[in-house]
């Protein structure tokens, strides 16, 4: 399930990145590459496990769904950290400056 959810996130983020391209102020390219990297790795993992062990290709249950949500949350968290640290909008700078002035 987490493979499907990560692949879906990768497709959606890539579409949003493409709509806004060539501008990538909010580093959506980074987020989409994060998701694509994980999607490819899990795809290989699932294919190899299916070929060697058999069984179901997709694990669809509550635990797998929660893991999918956790994976997306982690990717978004890392992306937001990068965004806040790089501060492309200058918002953090303005907030800190405003606090110093008041």
């Amino acid at each position, binding site marked *: 399930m*987490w493979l499907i959810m*990560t692949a879906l996130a990768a497709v959606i983020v890539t579409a949003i990145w493409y709509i806004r391209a060539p501008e990538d102020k909010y580093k959506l*390219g*980074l987020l989409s*590459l*994060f*998701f*694509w*990297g*994980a999607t*490819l*790795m*899990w*795809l*290989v*993992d699932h294919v*190899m*496990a299916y070929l060697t062990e058999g069984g179901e290709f997709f694990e669809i249950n509550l635990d797998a769904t929660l*893991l999918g949500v*956790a*994976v997306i949350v*982690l*990717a978004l968290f*890392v992306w937001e950290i990068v965004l806040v640290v790089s501060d492309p909008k200058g918002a953090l700078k303005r907030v800190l400056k405003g606090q110093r002035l008041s």
Partner: protein
Amino acid sequence: MACFLVPMGEAIVTTVVQKVVENKEKKVGKEKTTNTGLSWSRKLSWLNKMLWGGTALLALEHVWHGEVVPWPPFLAAMENPADVAPMLHEIATIGVAMAITVTVVWAIMILVAERRAKAVPKVKESPVSGGA
């Protein structure tokens, strides 16, 4: 069990390579190493992002499944000698396959990007028009 260690190892190497290439490009004073406008440091950054992103998310999955633990030796399989051989086998097969797949997809991305960039006609800069 610990298949993400192979892409992680590759990510460490490619990150170092990217930094070295970036410094070389700065020294030479040319951002563009090819006539298509894509520098090698930029191309390598795409690979790094895919590898690090995949590694981080796979690490979470391994923590979720109890295969990675927060105490030494960090890999649950290392606690039982009988699990070490299957773990190494998994690293050698699935881990290597993951790293190769991501690298091949990245190589295809580079080829497509280079080809697309070459297809774009060059605009001659004119002092009157400002290159527009």
